[in-house]
Each structure stands twice: as C-alpha cells, then as structure tokens.
C-alpha cells in the first residue's frame, strides 16, 4: 500500500468501520495503528486521543467499557490495541481486560493514576501487556505498537512451530520433559498434520494471517481428555501427559494445552470464588457466590467415590476436583485473562447453583442428565435458559462463545481459538439449546452453533434452537461445545455439526443474527448428519453463513469457515482455513489473524498450564 493510503486511513479514524488489516501499511507501521481507548474521565480521554493522533494512530475513544466491548465485538479486526483505565464506574478495567483478551485476543494496556504495586500486579496477572501511570506521557504512547508486534510474533512463532514448516517430519519428540516448548508440538504433529499443513502451506507463509488448523474437540475427545486429566489428577495434568494418555493421533500438545487451559478456567469458574480467588483480589471473583460455594464443599465429599460409582461422570469429577482446587488452578497468565469472571458474569448467575446443585445432590443426575453436569464439562456449560437471557444482555456478541454443539457426548470442540470466547460463554445460547434438545433430535443439537451472544433474543435462543438457528444465531464461535454434555446421548457424529457451527461463527455477528450454520443444517433434511453429509452440510452452512454473516464473528467464525476442510472424523477435527467463506467480511488475512489470535490465546496459555497449580500469585502480598 502506498503511504497515502495509510494517511487516508488515519484520517478516517475513529471509525468503527472494520478495517482490513491489510489496510495498515506494513512499512508505515506503526502509523495507522488502530487504538481503542477507554476511560471514564473525559479530560483524560481527550488528552489521550489527541496524543494518540499525534502519534499518527487511529483512535477510537469510549467512555464506557461496555460500549468499548460492543464495538470491539462488532468489529473484531478493527483494532490493534486497547488502552483502558483501571477504575471505571460501569466495569472494572481488569474485567474489560480479561474479556478483551479472551474474546478478541488483543493486547490491552492498562493505565491508572494509581501506581501502587498491588494494582500494577493485578494488571500483570490479568494479562495486561503494559501498565501506564497517569498522567500519561506521549512518549509512553509512542511505543505501544511494540505490544502488537510482540503478540503477533508470538502467535506466529506458535504457528510456525505447529505447522512444522520448519521441521521436516521429525519423529515425535514429545517425550522429552520440556513440554513447554512447542517445538515438540510441531515435530510431533508433523507427521500427522503434514498433509493438512501442506494445504495450508501457502497460507502459512503469510505472516499476517497466522493460520492454524483447528482441532475440534468432539464430545468423545473431550471425554478422553477429561478422563486423562482425572487419571493424572488435576494438579498433575500436564498437556504432555494428557496427550499421551489420550493417545489420539493428530492431536498436539498444544491443542491439549490450550484445551486444558480452558478447561481449568471453566472449572475455576464453576468452583466459584475460592480462597485463591480472593487473594487474587479479582473484583469479579465474588466469593460470595453461593453457586460456587457448594462446589468447594463438594471437595470434601468423595468425589472419587462418586466418580467411582459411576454416578459422576468423569467430567464432572474433574470439574469438581478442579473446583475444589480453587481457582488457583487456573491462575491467569498474562495471556489469558481469567475468564472466570467473565464467564460468571456472563452466564452464570445461577449456573453455579444449578450445576452444583445437581452435582451434589444427585450423582445419578449427573449421568442422566445431567444436562447440567454435562454442562460442566464444557467450559461454558452453565448455560441455562435463563442465563441465556442474561447472557444475551451481556454477551452481546460474543462470537466465539461456544459451540453449542450439543453435545455429542460431550464432545465439545473447543477450538483453541475459542479462547476468547471463553470468557464469553454465552451460556445463554448454549444452554438453552442444549437443554432443550437433549438427546432427541440430533438435528437440533447439531445446531450447536448457536451463535450465542449478541442475540438479544433471550428466550429465543433456547427455545427454539432450531428455528433460531436459521437465522438468528448470534455469531458466536463456540469454542467449547457445552452442549456436548447435554448430548451425551447424541450421536457422535453430531460433532460434524459442530464444524458447521464453526463456520457459523464466522458469520455470526454480534447483531443477534444467529447464523447458526448448524441451524440451517438442522432445518434441512440433512439433519442427521452422517459424515458423508458433512460436506454438504458444510456447504450449506457456508451458504447460510454467508447470508448471515456479518462478520465479526470474530475470528472464531472465521476459523470455521474452512468447513471445506473439515475432517469429520470422530477425532479432533482440524479445521483448516482455506479460503474464508466470507471474504467479504474479512479478508483472508483477517481471518487468519483472527484465527491465529484465537489460537494464540489457546496456545500461549498452554505454556502456562503447568504453572497453574503453582501459581501462587494469588497469594502474593501486595
């Protein structure tokens, strides 16, 4: 691009228009860097905006966090970095930080007049890229672009390693103890993924797109995962070992790591505020939450026994255990904001109670029907219909939320990139459908794709999943198929839908249009998705998606777009993004970057997996 374009872009600033990342002139970088600044103080906001413009960045200012979030959600690729104040009346800055990190995986810089160590530390633990003390100097703002680059670089690195493009089919080396190195991942995966990679080869070269095959966490896969985790013990469950236990070809440590991360977050969330949480001082962790309380108590109960008796589904046990462990297990690492809070806020007002209640009272419940229990498994499982409603309000447009895939036996496909949505689990959309559908019509379940969020139609979602799917799915990209749990009974092949759903996500837009691809599928005679029909189903989705796609489905959706490349095995499916189905919405690059970003979320945190248990940051006296 020529420089003048860049200038043009800059001057059009503060626009909410989604800008393709390609519009940013690379060689002019950081000119045109798109910054979203959030501060309730209008004086500061004015000064900041002016400073940022002086740095030649594009600036969008918001005085409220909610507003910022909805803008970001509505325009997933529209911004490169977010700067937010810590103390804001409508939402705590750290919460915003987490949500942004989860949903959009953007670098977030915190700022405050408060320079006390505790607050700065909080910024660190919540994953802020940087912390600026007010009054902010323009010099400090000049360099914020480094955070964008750094993040992209990390993602890129992950991608490279994963793709194994650098490796040449080296034999699996994951035996070595260094599981934090993703090199092993790449090499190990190489053999299996080689063919996948090849197809993406040309895309991989595109640094700006950072594309990665996605692993779809089907119900069975997740079951295996949870089983492995339980076997190892939540404390000792490290991706490498889990991977070995699972023994699923084609699954990489990274996939497991990111999935584990989500899982832990999920458990954390379920467990409510534990003592760790309190220490952490997260404002959003509300220890008082009754819903969570019981869970902790449950620890004392013989979870093991319960599990042993088969009353508790393994997953539930894992959840409970995790809950018992307290949040600490999922201590947020820089990259991964603790979604717990978000999740809780989003969904769960009552979820915890619901879920826990079930677990505690009737183990057998868990089995059957645990719809709730099942829900536990999925990260965002707490979606009850009411939550759905709640979520709607809140989560507007959390695209990635969770693939509602109903559950095919708990296979949820946490797309790693779903990470972002993690926070969002809009339970709303998920739960509802799940619950409604349960086991019966796979078709409905299939529509997991309920794009959650953004769909203000509160009730609508759960009620009629099928109908909604058609049109309304909020774009959400479910990373986890919470519904998986519900659909325990569902056929395995439901996950195919999941994929479909994935595509949906792309389309989904926070505008409440639920582009549930799945729904379309559901509606169609195809419903039974046999694997064979996947292709067709997928294509259907694609078309549906197109229609509804408004885009933002944020990266999640984009990822899914590649339904063309779905593998519908009952294995983790790697969804390759070939050509985005919705090019009009996002440039391929955007998709890729979105995908990557999301993956990134999954990836990066993965490395922190091991730290969770030892993550005593909560206890750091500040």
């Amino acid at each position, binding site marked *: 691009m020529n420089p003048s374009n860049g200038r043009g872009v800059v001057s059009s600033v503060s626009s909410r228009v989604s800008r393709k990342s390609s519009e940013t002139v690379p060689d002019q970088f950081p000119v045109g860097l798109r910054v979203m600044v959030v501060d309730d*103080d*209008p*004086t500061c906001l004015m000064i900041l905006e002016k400073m940022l413009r002086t740095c030649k960045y594009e600036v969008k200012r918001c005085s409220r966090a909610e507003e910022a979030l909805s803008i970001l959600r509505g325009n997933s690729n529209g911004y490169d970095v977010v700067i937010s104040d810590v103390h804001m009346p409508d939402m705590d800055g750290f919460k915003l930080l987490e949500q942004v990190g989860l949903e959009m995986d953007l670098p977030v810089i915190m700022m405050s*007049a*408060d320079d006390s160590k505790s607050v700065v530390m909080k910024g660190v633990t919540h994953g802020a890229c940087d912390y600026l003390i*007010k*009054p902010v*100097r323009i010099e400090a703002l000049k360099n914020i672009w480094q955070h964008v680059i750094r993040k992209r670089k990390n993602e890129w690195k992950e991608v490279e390693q994963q793709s194994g493009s650098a490796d040449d089919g080296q034999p699996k080396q994951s035996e070595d103890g260094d599981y934090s190195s993703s090199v092993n991942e790449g090499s190990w995966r190489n053999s299996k993924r080689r063919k996948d990679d090849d197809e993406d080869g040309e895309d991989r070269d595109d640094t700006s797109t950072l594309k990665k095959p996605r692993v779809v966490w089907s119900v069975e896969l997740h079951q295996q995962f949870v089983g492995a985790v339980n076997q190892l013990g939540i404390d000792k469950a490290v991706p490498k070992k889990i991977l070995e236990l699972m023994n699923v070809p084609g699954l990489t440590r990274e996939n497991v790591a990111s999935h584990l991360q989500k899982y832990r977050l999920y458990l954390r969330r379920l467990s409510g505020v534990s003592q760790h949480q309190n220490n952490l001082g997260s404002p959003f962790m509300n220890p008082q939450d009754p819903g969570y309380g019981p869970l902790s108590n449950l620890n004392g109960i013989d979870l093991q026994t319960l599990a042993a008796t088969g009353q508790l589904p393994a997953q539930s046990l894992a959840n409970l255990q995790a809950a018992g462990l307290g949040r600490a297990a999922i201590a947020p690492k820089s990259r991964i904001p603790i979604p717990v809070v978000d999740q809780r806020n989003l969904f769960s007002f009552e979820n915890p109670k619901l879920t826990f209640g079930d677990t505690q009272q009737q183990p057998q419940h868990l089995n059957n029907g645990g719809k709730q229990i099942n829900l536990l498994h999925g990260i965002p499982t707490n979606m009850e219909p009411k939550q759905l409603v709640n979520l709607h309000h809140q989560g507007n447009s959390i695209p990635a939320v969770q693939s509602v895939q109903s559950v095919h036996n708990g296979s949820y496909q946490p797309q790693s990139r779903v990470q972002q949505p993690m926070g969002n689990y809009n339970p709303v959309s998920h739960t509802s459908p799940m619950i409604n559908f349960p086991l019966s019509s796979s078709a409905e379940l299939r529509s997991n794709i309920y794009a959650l969020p953004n769909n203000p139609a509160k009730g609508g979602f759960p009620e009629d999943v099928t109908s909604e799917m058609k049109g309304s799915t909020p774009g959400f990209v479910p990373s986890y198929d919470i519904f998986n749990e519900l659909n325990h009974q569902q056929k395995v092949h439901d996950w195919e839908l999941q994929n479909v759903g994935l595509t949906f996500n792309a389309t989904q837009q926070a505008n409440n249009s639920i582009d549930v691809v799945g729904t379309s599928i559901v509606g169609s005679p195809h419903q039974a998705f046999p694997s064979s029909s996947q292709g067709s189903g997928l294509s259907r989705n694609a078309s549906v998606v197109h229609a509804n796609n408004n885009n933002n489905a944020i990266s999640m959706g984009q990822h899914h777009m590649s339904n063309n490349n779905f593998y519908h095995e009952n294995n983790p499916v790697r969804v390759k993004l070939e050509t985005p189905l919705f090019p009009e919405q996002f440039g391929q690059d955007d998709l890729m970057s979105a995908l990557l970003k999301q993956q990134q979320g999954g990836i990066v945190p993965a490395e922190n997996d091991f730290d969770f248990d030892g993550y005593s940051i909560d206890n750091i006296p500040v």
Partner: protein
Amino acid sequence: MDRNQSHRQVATMKQSLFDQGYLDHEQFNQLEELQDDANPNFVEEVVTLYYRDSARLVHSIEQALEKSPIDFNKLDSYMHQFRGSSSSIGAKKVKAECSLFREYCRAGNGEGCMRTFQQVKKEYTALRKKLETFFQLARQAGPVDRARRPK
C-alpha cells in the same frame, strides 16, 4: 512588537504558574505540545472540559462528606478520579491536596477529610481563575509560532 510583548506576557505568566506550583510544567507542556493547527486551542479546551467535568465530582464529594456516616470508600473513589483528572492537566496543587485528602480518607478521618477538601476547593478555584486569565492572554496574543514536529 505588540505580538511579541503579548507572547512574552503569556510566557511569563505561564512561568509564574509553574514557579508558584500551580501547574506542573512537564504535564502542561505536554498539553501544549499537542496543540497544533487542527486544535489551536487544545489546552484551553482540555482545561475547560476538566472544570466542567470535575464540577460534578466536587459536588459528589461534598454530598458524600455531608452524609453520616461517611462512606469513605466512595469518597476515596471520587477523589481518585478527581485526582487523576487534575493531574492530567497538570494541576499540581490541587493534586497534592487530593493526595492529602485520600490519606485522611483511608484513615477514616472525616474531620481531616472535610478540612482538606476545603483546601482542595480553594486550590481548584484559584487555579481556575489563573488559567482563565492565562487563556485570555494567550488568545489575545494569538497563536504562537513555534517549531513543531512534522506531521
């Protein structure tokens, strides 16, 4: 000549504001640096916005101080905002009084808070007057020709 004189007057006044500690010269200079052709009165606009916005904060604080019992947390929160705002325009004395206020607040000392707040208001009002004069002078003097970094 006149123009130069005016500019000098402005500069002198500004310097005295710095010297007397009303304004933090670094921060204020930062604001002035931001002023350009597109926003020739940027600093004045910011200050005006500050006074307008902080008026409600001042009001909230006053109300909170009148309550019984005093909600120190809320007070602290208001004051934090107020202090942040004030520091962004370089209101040095105001900021200092705010910090003092917050200490009393944290100690739960209602009396101390009230006393300090009177000081805060005093400084706040005094600064406003000075700045009004300053901006008047500045407007009269016209835009300052100074080297700017190339846009």
